[in-house]
């Protein structure tokens, strides 16, 4: 069996690519899969801290590409999941230190030993993005229900299609059900109407994401209940693994006050 290469990208920065990469890689590993996460954001390394592996880095992606170490030496083994590895980005180099064909070669070397390779793409549409997308079998586009993020996601969808990596699958991150229900946030259906792309996951806004990155322990590992974002990430991982998992109901349960408000605004 050869690994599937998943590239997580977004165009716009700050929508949660690294969080999504860390949580999906971890959730796939928790399903018993062999997973390597690759940080392709050379110069702005971050996946290591989100996964809590920053103290173990000796070699990085650029060291592998430039032949200073063997691939295995740059693969940091996760502390908790036996079959989860991280290849960190170089911190003191830039995107031109690696080429798209380097990335294809590196992933091809890994394919036989892994079930999934999850690549964290840098923001933007330049070299770093092309490096991250070149080896992809499937591109996961992360967006937020926000005008600028959706616009950039649309641009990325177009570029992925042009690179024949399309059509891509969408993860809508940081959805606030309360805001959607009062009409102050684009709904999942609105975003899908606009982008016309397949939905892979909807992740609710969750303060515990920040707590998790403070601790360097991806949210999916924080016990099995109580975290809706963690649950949503585990669902995405199962969908990626071919299971059909229904989407979570994120609608807000009506309270007396919300009913009263709806009545006052004529929306009852």
């Amino acid at each position, binding site marked *: 069996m050869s690994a599937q290469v998943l590239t997580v990208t977004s165009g716009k920065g700050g929508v949660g690519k690294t969080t999504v990469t860390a949580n999906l890689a971890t959730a796939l590993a928790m399903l018993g899969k062999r997973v390597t996460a690759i940080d392709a954001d050379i110069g702005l390394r971050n996946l290591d801290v989100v996964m809590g592996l920053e103290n173990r880095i000796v070699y990085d992606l650029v060291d592998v590409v430039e032949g200073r170490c063997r691939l295995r030496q740059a693969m940091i083994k996760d502390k908790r999941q036996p079959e989860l590895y991280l290849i960190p980005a170089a911190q003191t180099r830039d995107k031109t230190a690696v080429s798209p064909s380097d990335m294809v070669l590196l992933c091809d070397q890994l394919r036989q030993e892994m079930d999934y390779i999850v690549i964290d793409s840098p923001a933007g549409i330049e070299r770093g993005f092309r490096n991250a997308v070149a080896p992809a079998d499937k591109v996961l586009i992360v967006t937020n229900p926000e005008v600028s993020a959706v616009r950039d996601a649309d641009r990325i969808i177009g570029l992925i299609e042009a690179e024949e990596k399309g059509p891509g699958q969408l993860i809508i991150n940081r959805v606030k059900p309360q*805001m959607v229900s009062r009409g102050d946030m*684009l709904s999942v259906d609105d975003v899908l109407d606009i982008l016309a792309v397949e939905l892979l996951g909807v992740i609710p806004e969750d303060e515990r994401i920040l707590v998790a990155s403070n601790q360097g322990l991806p949210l999916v590992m924080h016990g099995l209940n109580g975290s809706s974002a963690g649950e949503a990430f585990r669902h995405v991982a199962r969908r990626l693994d071919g299971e059909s998992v229904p989407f979570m109901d994120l609608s807000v349960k009506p309270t007396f006050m919300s009913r009263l408000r709806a009545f006052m605004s004529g929306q009852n």
Partner: protein
Amino acid sequence: MSWLDRLLGRNETSGQIAKQRLQMVLVHDRADLPPGLLEQIKDDIIQVIARHTAVDTANVAVHLEQNARENRLIAEVPLLAARGRRG
């Protein structure tokens, strides 16, 4: 939307406004045709057609339409009645 918005005649939520603005901006992004360029295209179309027949220039409309990920340039060019041409 609150009863206050309704009272003041504001009947669109900010979510709806966001969706409409996105749809407009993406039609132009996808076609790589800035809104100003459409006006130029409109003038060019009028010129070409006016060489052959009389055009009701004030009522020519050119816009982009999108269907899923396909873009279409729609031009409506009303012609002036061909008075006396057959007579």
